[in-house]
């Protein structure tokens, strides 16, 4: 039966009527808006977006994940400055949660180089002492996925600093694990969530607590890049003899000697004095 009934069941008819009406009204409204919109303006807005789609995928602008931040990368992937891919972020080191993956920012000459080390070294190695005045003696690799101690990563020839793990100081437990700043982190989380506005004095006290295990004199470049007795045991950490030798060679050590100006992290300054250099640049 082609026409089901002249007098359809009412509910069926109502459904059909409403469905068609909505469809027709929506289509008519869209068409009218579209047609009126073509007057005076081009059919296409945001034409570069259209172009981007048409440009080969290698040319497309991408939002790449670099550490903690989404950074728009406008350069093409063929440019030698293109990062190509994001590296695995460190979700376990407390410092990064506030200071970001590029925490060094004071001295233009040094900040990039120091930040580069945060790719494969925990901030705790240079800036934290688990027990006051006691430099860490045991080091290991922390798996960036789990935050737990892991075996030494495989270091391929052309991989520089990206091993999916970071060098961390180990705690003094029998079965050592990466040092954790649990109390500090708990307070930091509380501070972050705290809706009440603390006074400057309260802020200073809390900051001081969070940074209580920070050292005023961090580990220097030359402490690690020295042929005398390097702070980090490279071979124990899985570095090949060749690469370990390179890290303490004159080529690197001589270079590291230029990095001698270090600033104390600001939260440790309870007064409003300008940043204090622990060791002035010899030049």
């Amino acid at each position: 039966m082609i026409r089901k009934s002249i007098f359809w069941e009412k509910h069926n008819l109502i459904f059909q009527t409403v469905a068609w009406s909505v469809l027709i009204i929506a289509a008519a409204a869209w068409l009218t808006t579209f047609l009126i919109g073509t007057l005076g303006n081009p059919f296409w807005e945001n034409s570069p977006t259209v172009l981007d789609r048409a440009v080969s995928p290698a040319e497309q602008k991408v939002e790449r994940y670099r550490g903690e931040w989404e950074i728009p990368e406008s350069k093409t992937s063929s440019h030698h400055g293109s990062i190509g891919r994001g590296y695995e972020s460190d979700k376990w080191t407390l410092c990064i949660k506030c200071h970001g993956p590029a925490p060094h920012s004071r001295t233009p000459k040094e900040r990039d180089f120091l930040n580069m080390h945060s790719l494969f070294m925990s901030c705790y190695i240079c800036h934290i002492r688990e027990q006051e005045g006691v430099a860490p003696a045991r080091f290991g690799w922390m798996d960036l996925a789990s935050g737990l101690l892991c075996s030494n990563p495989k270091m391929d020839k052309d991989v520089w600093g990206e091993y999916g793990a970071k060098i961390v100081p180990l705690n003094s437990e029998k079965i050592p694990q990466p040092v954790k700043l649990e109390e500090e982190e708990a307070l930091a989380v509380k501070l972050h969530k705290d809706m009440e506005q603390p006074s400057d004095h309260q802020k200073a006290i809390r900051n001081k607590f969070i940074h209580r295990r920070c050292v005023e004199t961090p580990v220097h470049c030359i402490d690690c890049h020295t042929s005398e007795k390097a702070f980090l045991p490279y071979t124990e950490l899985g570095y090949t003899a060749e690469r370990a030798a390179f890290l303490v060679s004159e080529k690197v050590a001589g270079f590291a000697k230029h990095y001698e100006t270090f600033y104390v992290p600001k939260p440790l300054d309870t007064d409003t004095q300008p940043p204090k250099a622990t060791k002035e640049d010899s030049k």
Partner: protein
Amino acid sequence: MLKKSFIVAIILLLPILCRFARAAEDAAADADNCLMCHRFRGLASVDNEDAYRLFYVDEGLFSQGPHAGVGCKDCHADIEKAPHDDAKPVDCSGCHNVEVPTRENMLAHEKLRDSVHVSVEQDGTPRAFQEDYPDCRDCHDRNFIRYYFTHGATRLRKVRDPCEVVGTCARCHANKAMARRHNLLDVVSSYMETYHGKAVIFGSSKAPDCLDCHAGQGSVHKMHAKMDQRSSINPQNRPATCSSENCHVSASPALSSFDVHTNRDMATSPLLFGVALFFVVMTIAILLPILTLNVLGLVREIFPSHEAEQEVKRLETLVKGKAALKGGILRFPGSLRLQHLFLVIVFLVLCLTGFPRTFAKAQWSPVILGFFGGINGAPIVHRIAGVALLVGFVVHIASIFLKVRSALVKEGKRGIKSYVKKIMSLPMIPQAQDMKDLVVLTKYVCFLSPRRPNYDRFSWKEKLEYLGLFWGIPLLGVTGILLWAVNISSHVLPGWVLNIAYLAHIYESILAAAHIALVHIPSVIGMSGLLSFSAMLNGKITPEVQAQEHGREIERWHSAEETNE
């Protein structure tokens, strides 16, 4: 013999020698061991302006680039020691500013000093908004200089990708704020709307890009303002630019009046605004009243008048006997169904090959166009379908005339008046009764009258659709041919007419497609509960459909039968 062995040995060792040469080149590029630090992806910082800056260098990409043999310090000349402070931006003119290309330095070109893109006037006066003017890297930081070959060979023939060129120019020229500052038009959007721009969007490598018109035959660095007599787009030079090699060689100079960067703005393009307004008003004026009547008609279906129901029942009873005898009521003979099928196929092909280009921005456009061979194949299919439609249209008109002629011969009538009279009496020609039917329908759907209109063989809607073809097909056909044979068209009509033809073609096709999609298809697939599309499948409809849609025809049959009896 010894000489031959030596040559063979050299050939065999060539790959190894090349590898060594490459290694030596790489080593030369990083003689200062910059990669010792710069090969780490983490070499980054937040600068004093809170911008995250990355100083990583991908060794592999660098060694494949055009500057693989260039040392870091050759570009970053201000860096004298490591570690170093922030380096200054690279000044490309350190290498690329030699006066004239020479045999020794093929990549050199004249320094930018006489172009619209230079931030100073020829006499050295700084131009306003200095920061808007591009430096070398604004244009040359893309793939099209990635390869030495591409860069050098572009001087010999076009090897650059138009999309990259347009994208490069769009990076500045699509910036509306910048365009306003420099009193420029929205040239990117308008270009993207032309056939040139759409071809670029769909990845054509042959489509003309910005440089093809604006750089003319000279260096791309000698780009001048439109009103500068040296400019390739100056009104005096445009004919030569349009008819340059690989472009519209056989076109008349009149083609140059075609406005590439036009839009439908009342202030800048009043003529095109008027044309667009005409089509917009016409489309809305035709479709909206019909759609309104259809929606109101749907509502009335829920609450039909008693009189209308009784009338339909009566008509159905009258026609049931006729239908029972013939297994349905024949509505369309085979020849008409064949013509309709032909029209459906051609229309679909035209829509599928045309609309993706009209709506080039849409995500579905490249997918659909891909089925027809992309931007190179689809236009050919579109033109073939267009020609087929025109031929079919002519055949249809010819068949009508032949039928009219044979009818007049039978009746023994002659003369133009007889032809006109006969044609005007054809069932598809609107009559005064159609207007009355429209009034009756309007009253009925607005609940102002209980009387439902009874249509004859064709209702006013069907007549309107049919006559629409006599407006749409010639219009689309003529404008389509003008745009297709653009070089020949330019010998008959000025270029600006093609701007109108282009607009008319697009707007008319939208009207046609919208009418089919919103009015025709819903009415035949059962919007009102009537499935009448069988009329175009087996040619027959049911007594119910006949009674609902063509009641007056039933009465005509009935009175004819009574007369015969």
